[in-house]
């Protein structure tokens, strides 16, 4: 028998249930641009289409400072506080 030491972080990922998906969309939807080139073009077009289909819904724009790093904690918290939905989009 050989004993080896675990080279990983030994953390068991916590399983979390997905938040229940609502039947319909209402309230505020976040449109998150990850700051890749032309992401703004994609988001603008998405918003245009969604506004037609969801007239009662408010859209708010957010952007990551750079696509190369995860979204900052403050930005994530702000989106969670202000919106019920989020659409994250990238383009190139």
């Amino acid at each position, binding site marked *: 028998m050989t004993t*080896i030491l*675990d080279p990983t972080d030994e953390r068991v990922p916590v399983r979390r249930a997905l938040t229940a998906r609502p039947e319909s969309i209402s309230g505020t939807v976040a449109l998150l641009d990850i700051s890749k080139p032309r992401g703004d073009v994609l988001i603008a077009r998405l918003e245009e289409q969604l506004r037609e289909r969801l007239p009662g819904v408010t859209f708010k724009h957010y952007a990551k400072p750079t696509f190369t790093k995860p979204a900052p904690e403050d930005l994530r918290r702000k989106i969670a506080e202000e919106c019920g939905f989020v659409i994250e989009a990238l383009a190139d």
Partner: protein
Amino acid sequence: MPLIEAAHHAFGDRMDVWAIGQDAEGNQRLVEQHKLTLPMLDDSALHTSFAYDIDTVPTVILANEHGEELERFVGFGKPDWQELYRRLIDVTRAPAPVVDWGDYPESRPGCGSKSVEPDIYARLAAEASDSPIRARRIEVGESDDVFEFMFEQGLTDGLPVVPPTPERVLRVLEGTKRDPQEVLGVVPPNLAPLTVEKAAINAVMAGCRPEYMPVVIAALEAILTDEFNMHGVLATTHFPTPVIIVNGPIRDRIGMNYRMNVLGQGNRANATIGRAVQLVVRNVGGGRPGEVDRAALGQPGKYTFCFAEFEERSNWEPLHVERGFKKEESTVTVFAGGAPTGFVDQLARDARTLANSYGKVLAAVSHPKHYNAGEIVVVVSPEHVDTIAKDGWSKAQFRAQIQEATKRPVRELVQDSELAEGIPPAAAEKLGLDTLVPKFRSDEMITLVVAGGEAGKFAAYLQGWVSGPMGSSMVTRKIED
């Protein structure tokens, strides 16, 4: 053995007299040969020998009723035994053992205890209750091939790894003065804390020797900074990987290569230091290709990419001095770089024309119409160093001429129907179509590092990635013991 047996007969009803042997079969032979009646305890696991720090057998230890050692002597010494008997007679008031002292030599040296044989000592230290090791121990069954097991568990980069047994990890930990539980940083993408111990486990797997640990640790601390942005370097679809450049006296102390084939295979320190860093990102951070590592093509440097600068071969300031460190300090510099691309100039005989060649080649990095580029590393070989040195050019002069030679008018760089890449027309108008622009944002973006064999008028560039605060910046860190 007869003297211990005699002590057992004389004092055994007033104190415990035990023999402790390190080999179960050998113990049995001794019992039969000397017709021993005293308790012969088996320490073939060597835990007792290790706990009492025995380095020679035989060792005789006198302990009190709490097991606390009062005295010991090693090897065989007739006066030692006679003194011991006198002391025991005093304490126990028992009659003296019957011994014919004429049968014994005055003294005889002992042999080395099994518990201090290097491999065994390392295992015992790893198993001891005060062992610095905290990592989970994984038992690999007799019928399993440990190399195959590590592949199956997804712990390797595709090449076999050295099994990180506790004794190997302890040995590698001896290469650093850092506490094994000290946290060096948080490894993306899982944002897992990295201890010195986990770094050592992965360093063992990579094939590192203990003396490489200070370099591995400094390189890991460097890539785990916000400036280097290991998350982005890992997650991008682009080519970069940590390129580790070592400067200072440690290069020779650990036998790094900075001469022939410097960017190639064959040197253990170069190969395994870079690999250890990669394995930490994979195993501790959970950064695996096809998962958070989204590289479209990747590059061979993602196995390992580490080399040293040939500081002595040029009059230029070495990289670490340029970056604010003392020449006698050892450092690692990490750069998010692509695979080396070689280029040739065999005919230039002066610094200016050679810099012009460099400029023409570097103008095409990434794409000939990509300008305003960030960091790049250029490895300059000794023969090119000599050409530049003839004119006495500094690094700054050489860099400036490279920049000059990359300059092109905006009209050649604007997006058009033949080449979609380039400067958007509106931006080009703003710049002015006849304006000459250089490839790099500033001269300082071009890092020149001297390395390579004596023959060959070649150089190699390592292209960068998104440079600066939006992506990754070069980071230099001092190597500490």
